[in-house]
């Protein structure tokens, strides 16, 4: 049941991205949509890691390492985007 709920949540978020991605103004950079896309993707990845890959039952070290990578990826991608746009 928990796996099905996770799948439904992940699918609902993905379908919502279809709505966000279809918004007008595809011809101009949009920091809000980009930030949202990256953050939502990382939230989805964390759900996959914790629910499907059973990291929530794993030793604390593995939980911390996967969370650390998610934070690093988020900071790295958003940092590259905002610094790059400012240059």
């Amino acid at each position: 049941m928990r796996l099905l709920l996770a799948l439904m949540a992940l699918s609902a978020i993905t379908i919502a991205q279809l709505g966000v991605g279809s918004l007008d103004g595809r011809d101009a950079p949009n920091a809000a949509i980009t930030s949202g896309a990256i953050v939502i993707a990382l939230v989805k990845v964390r759900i996959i890691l914790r629910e499907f890959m059973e990291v929530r039952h794993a030793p604390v070290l593995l939980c911390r390492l996967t969370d650390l990578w998610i934070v690093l990826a988020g900071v790295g991608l958003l940092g590259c985007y905002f610094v790059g746009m400012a240059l």
Partner: protein
Amino acid sequence: MTKGTAASARFVPGQPDMWAFVLFEALVFTAYFMVYVVRRTQSPDLFLASQAHLDLRVGVFHTLVLLASSWSVARCVKAARARSYRAATTNAFLTMLFGFVFLVSKVIEWATKIEEGFGFTSDEFFSFYYFLTAIHFLHLLIGFGVLAIAVHQLWSPARRSQEAIETCATYWHTVDFLWVLIFALLYVMR
């Protein structure tokens, strides 16, 4: 050990070596993604114009299919743990089916883009598009071999190893979560 204690005990799903590989792959792909984002910010108009030629609905479909494959392989692991090997095998085959649907759909998308005149050398966006999707595709192909190992394990009572099945599932989930990030960066971001 009581049932309650067993349920609350912490464990590494599959072999720890596979987790080291997963974290290594995650870091390597993060580096690819960061290079893509930096290059994108240097030519935003070109990237946006080329990105408009991708069909977001196809990206969403690919994502939903791979999410479903992750769900079925997670069910395979749970069924094997409960010694319901028939259900586990069915879910392993279901995972392969979802993977095959993704594979065919991705090849059709590539063929359509090439037919429309957007090849690897068309522009920088499409170079990244083909590079990222192709390297992911390679991981997907390896995933079929990994799933075959899981089925091979499940097939015979003499071979069944829960750790091996969990290791195979961990690899397949990695293929899924890497795609989730590729989808966001190639199809959604602006």
